[in-house]
């Protein structure tokens, strides 16, 4: 009896391995290391089928924080990098891990808070002034704390204030160490302020009584870039297929596809490729 079930299981196992044979070079798919904001907002679900239909290339997205995406790509684990942390992206290219960086699109960051707005920052358009007031009120603030693009942008803003949030870590400043969605869930759960990219916020389904309290400061601008991982440094990179994807994203077709993505009637990403 057990022998027979062993045979069955073993067969299942080898079938499993068979179906999952390593990808050979001819396989028409690429791996894109990207961020949770592009994935969770639904942008990829909207634009990738258009590209696949046109090119016959399947796009496999690994959605992690920008920091981890860059690290994975610099290990050669991906063909294209599509993230939002310009200084880190430029460092990635300078280190020879990427071929060239192109602007793709932007959206912006917003600060969201419970309706009661305990620090009273609603309506303030100067983001650093708003952050300072949150710190003075010692109102809870949920930070990604995960080295993601959003986290890096948030820390750049804190650096422009007189506040040292790390000193309050564990107090009013709470680092979740998680993705945007998990951090939003945590913020809603504990009534904390948090900074999110607008796309994730709009498509987030568990808003509770939260709303946007700070937006529109130019320093909240959030630029996305795309980079082909350098095949000279990482020979397994599918340079040809990856380049086709990069070219399409910054082409008129790709840019139009990005612009056409809407949630609840709102446009989430604004294409700004330079060609």
């Amino acid at each position: 009896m057990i022998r027979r079930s062993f045979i069955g299981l073993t067969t299942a196992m080898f079938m499993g391995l068979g179906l999952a044979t390593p990808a050979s070079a001819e396989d028409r798919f690429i791996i894109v290391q990207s961020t949770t904001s592009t994935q969770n907002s639904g942008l990829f679900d909207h634009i990738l089928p258009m590209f696949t239909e046109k090119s016959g290339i399947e796009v496999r997205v690994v959605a992690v924080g920008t920091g981890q995406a860059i690290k994975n790509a610099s290990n050669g684990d991906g063909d294209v990098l599509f993230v939002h942390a310009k200084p880190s992206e430029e460092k990635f290219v300078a280190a020879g891990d990427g071929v060239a960086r192109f602007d793709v699109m932007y959206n912006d960051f917003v600060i969201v808070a419970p309706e009661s707005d305990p620090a009273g920052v609603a309506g303030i358009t100067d983001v650093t002034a708003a952050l300072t007031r949150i710190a003075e009120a010692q109102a809870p603030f949920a930070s990604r704390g995960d080295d993601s693009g959003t986290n890096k942008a948030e820390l750049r803003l804190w650096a422009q204030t007189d506040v040292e949030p790390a000193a309050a870590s564990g107090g009013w400043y709470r680092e979740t160490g998680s993705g945007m969605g998990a951090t939003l869930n945590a913020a809603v759960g504990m009534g904390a302020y948090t900074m999110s990219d607008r796309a994730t916020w709009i498509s987030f389904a568990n808003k509770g009584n939260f709303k946007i309290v700070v937006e529109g400061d130019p320093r909240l601008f959030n630029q996305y870039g795309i980079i082909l991982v350098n095949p000279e440094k990482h020979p397994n990179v599918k340079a040809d297929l990856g380049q086709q994807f990069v070219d399409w994203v910054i082409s008129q077709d790709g840019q139009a596809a990005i612009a056409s993505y809407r949630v609840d009637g709102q446009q989430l990403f604004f294409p700004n490729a330079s060609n």
Partner: protein
Amino acid sequence: MDSFGSILAEAFGLILALDPDLVEIVGLSLKVTLSAVAISCLIGLPLGAAVGAFRFPGRIVLTVLLNAMMGLPPVVVGLTVYLMLSASGPFGALALLYTPTAMIIAQTILVTPIAAALTRQVVEDLNREYAEQFASLGVGPLGRISALLRDARFSLLTVALAGFGRAVAEVGAVMIVGGNINHVTRVMTTTIALETSKGNLQLALALGVVLLILSLIINAAVMAVRGTAQRAAYV
């Protein structure tokens, strides 16, 4: 927060609709988990039986090690497998990262210690009864192992189920080495994590219920087979 009733309703709605995406995800979950459990049993059962049946130097240390490894953190296993399979890692040339095979490897590492440690306990107890008789009959080491495993087969089904439970519920390792790629490496647990991060808590919970039902069906099926076989053939 939604009521538990509406979560259940959504869960059954998902099952009844036989949504192709859901079917695909459930199928991959089963494929990955069952493969990992099968490989783990092929390694862990003989290993555990050997530790349970034989006395050799280092046996206690090995036993403690196996028991401790039952608590391996999935994320650590995931990271280790990632570093091994990464294009810049030692096995990068195999191009296994972000494939179901990578997920099977990670889960096999998680489940094998469970299979071995629990098998050791079962076999050690049975061996206490059989050891003298085996010695008297002059049964060799391999004969002992296979006879003990065969006679403990019904208890070992529970061992396999314990391994299945660990693997099917695990998210940390498969997320890292699989990448949660839609239609390629997305399984039940990573989908639940994804929907949670999108704030779709009700859908996430409903998927959790689907996972639970799946686990329930498999456990019930194995127990039914075990009961029938036990009654029909041996005691």
